[in-house]
């Protein structure tokens, strides 16, 4: 078990290092930041000064090491547009994003998992088919189409809810529904197939053949086993709490991290983009790591070290 955890932590660290390297390489490949920021007609001494202040006059490997060191110090650069530390800019926006993504996550879990389990237990019924059809549509409708459809219905036609901004609780309703609905459909479909897979296993038939009541079979054998793959997907959903709302925040003019990212990309504010990139990667890797530990708890085979790293 300890070896399993160590392997996973090692992998997580390597992944983060890869993301940092990726950011650095892309940053260097994208051309001379001095000319991008100051414009091609900037005076040469201004460019030289810019290069010096950003460390661009050093050899590449020195810049690479400096880059790593800076990130370890928590120094993620200054927004090239408004001169404030990128990290602060991003942190300011996180509460707004979480105000959407956390309730949306609750909605997904509360709708998706029970719907998936119920559909699997009642395979072939009208409910099951409804869940499946909804799930397929939920996948095919992009979030911006769903968002605009909801706006068209509830804001434009009915006038019940505001279409954008962040002034009242009501403003959060449409974005949360948009985020939650699509995710719930995907989660329901996934839970259903995980559950069906488990229900087809011999140990379920054994458990029910030995006379255990069906409810006990489901509670004691099917659910815990179906939980294992589902946890992975939930981990992914948690990992995307920070940046899962890029499109939806843009549609509803919600001042969160996602909208900041879109604006920063449009303005080519590299420090902010890179800060969000690293933050998202860190969240994702951390939640994957938690999922791995949960696996250890849920799956006794891992707990006893019988399964090598796959």
């Amino acid at each position, binding site marked *: 078990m300890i*070896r*399993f955890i*160590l*392997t996973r932590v*090692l992998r997580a660290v390597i992944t983060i290092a890869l993301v940092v390297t990726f950011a650095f390489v892309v940053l260097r490949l994208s051309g001379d930041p001095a000319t991008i920021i100051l414009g091609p007609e900037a005076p040469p001494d201004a460019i030289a000064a810019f290069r010096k202040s950003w460390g661009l006059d050093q050899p590449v490997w020195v810049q690479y090491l400096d880059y790593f060191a800076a990130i370890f110090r928590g120094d993620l650069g200054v927004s090239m547009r408004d001169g404030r530390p990128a990290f602060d800019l991003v942190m300011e926006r996180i509460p707004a994003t979480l105000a959407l993504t956390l309730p949306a996550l609750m909605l997904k879990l509360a709708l998706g998992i029970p719907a998936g389990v119920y559909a699997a237990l009642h395979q072939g019924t009208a409910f099951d088919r409804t869940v499946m059809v909804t799930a397929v549509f939920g996948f095919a409708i992009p979030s911006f189409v769903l968002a605009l459809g909801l706006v068209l219905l509830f804001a434009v036609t009915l006038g019940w809810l505001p279409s954008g901004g962040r002034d009242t609780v009501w403003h959060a309703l449409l974005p949360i529904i948009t985020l939650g609905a699509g995710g719930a459909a995907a989660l329901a479909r996934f839970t259903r197939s995980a559950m069906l897979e488990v229900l087809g296993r011999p140990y379920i038939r054994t458990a029910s053949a030995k006379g255990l009541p069906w409810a006990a079979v489901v509670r004691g054998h099917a659910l815990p086993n179906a939980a294992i793959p589902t946890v992975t997907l939930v981990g992914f959903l948690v990992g995307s709490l920070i940046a899962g709302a890029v499109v939806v925040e843009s549609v509803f003019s919600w001042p969160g991290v996602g909208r900041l990212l879109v604006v920063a990309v449009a303005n080519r504010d590299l420090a902010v983009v890179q800060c969000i990139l690293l933050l998202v990667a860190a969240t994702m890797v951390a939640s994957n790591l938690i999922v791995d530990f949960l696996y250890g708890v849920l799956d006794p085979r891992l707990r006893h070290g019988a399964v*090598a*790293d796959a």
Partner: protein
Amino acid sequence: MTDLLTLDDVARAYVTRKGLLGRRSTVRAVDGVSLQVKAGETLGIVGESGSGKSTMGRIALGLERPNEGAVRFDGAPMPLAGTPEWRDARRRMQMVFQDPLAALDRRLPVLTQIIEPLAIHKIDTDPARAGLEALTAVGLSRDHGARFPHELSGGQRQRVVIARALMTAPDLLVCDEPVSALDVSIQAQVVNLLIDLQQRSGLGMMFISHDLRVVRQISTRVAVMYLGRIVEEGPAADVLRTPAHPYARALVSAAPAPGPRRTDRVILTGEPPNPAARPTGCAFHPRCPVAVARCRSEAPPLVPIASGRSAACHLITPFAKVAA
């Protein structure tokens, strides 16, 4: 007659590891084997599963590189697997596999696969005629050639594999349990086919099998393997009629043979051999009915025991001493 294939004190160990940070352990699958295959003769390799006989077949073909010792083919060292020289040498040495269905591409008609070696080695003949000849040579019809592997029976598939192996007219053929996946009634047909083909082309053959009956039928000489080592070797008729090594005796007496019921049956007891936990001294001593104290501590070398025969056992008097 010159030796076509020579294995000289060859050993192959595998290092296994549990997980990324796991403990290493070493398994010696083949442990100091020397043997020769001459043109026109068949060397039978006999042993239980885990005796290292398949690994040895792969080493003989250069599919695997031994950790120690040398493999020579027609006097020249075996080239490294995957190199152009090695690929070129495939023309002259071929293999017949245990599971013919697995050895064939299930998406291509078998005739296409039979003539593939011509394209691989850029052999300049008429592929259509060569393919038909090859089909006829292994007793299949033109109609069989158009079928897919799953549309043929096990015996027919193995004939296809043999036809493909013989396409480049090789000098050496290694057969790894070629009939053990087939019905008994089909086994004899395939074995007879191999004998026929060998007599016609004069190739050297290494025939790996756990089935003494089949080995007796096809082999000129036989080597008996136990846990990666040869324990007895000699002319097939002699070794299989009067085995000298206790393990060979046990194997022979366990195999059904025609004739009156035998009274001197040796029954093997104890654990089957496990290459990961090799006993000290003579590897066979825990199961040997005649083991003495020396067998536990000292591994017996393979020494001549009669004309053309050798065995590795402390209790057998070496040939040289008898002669003296």
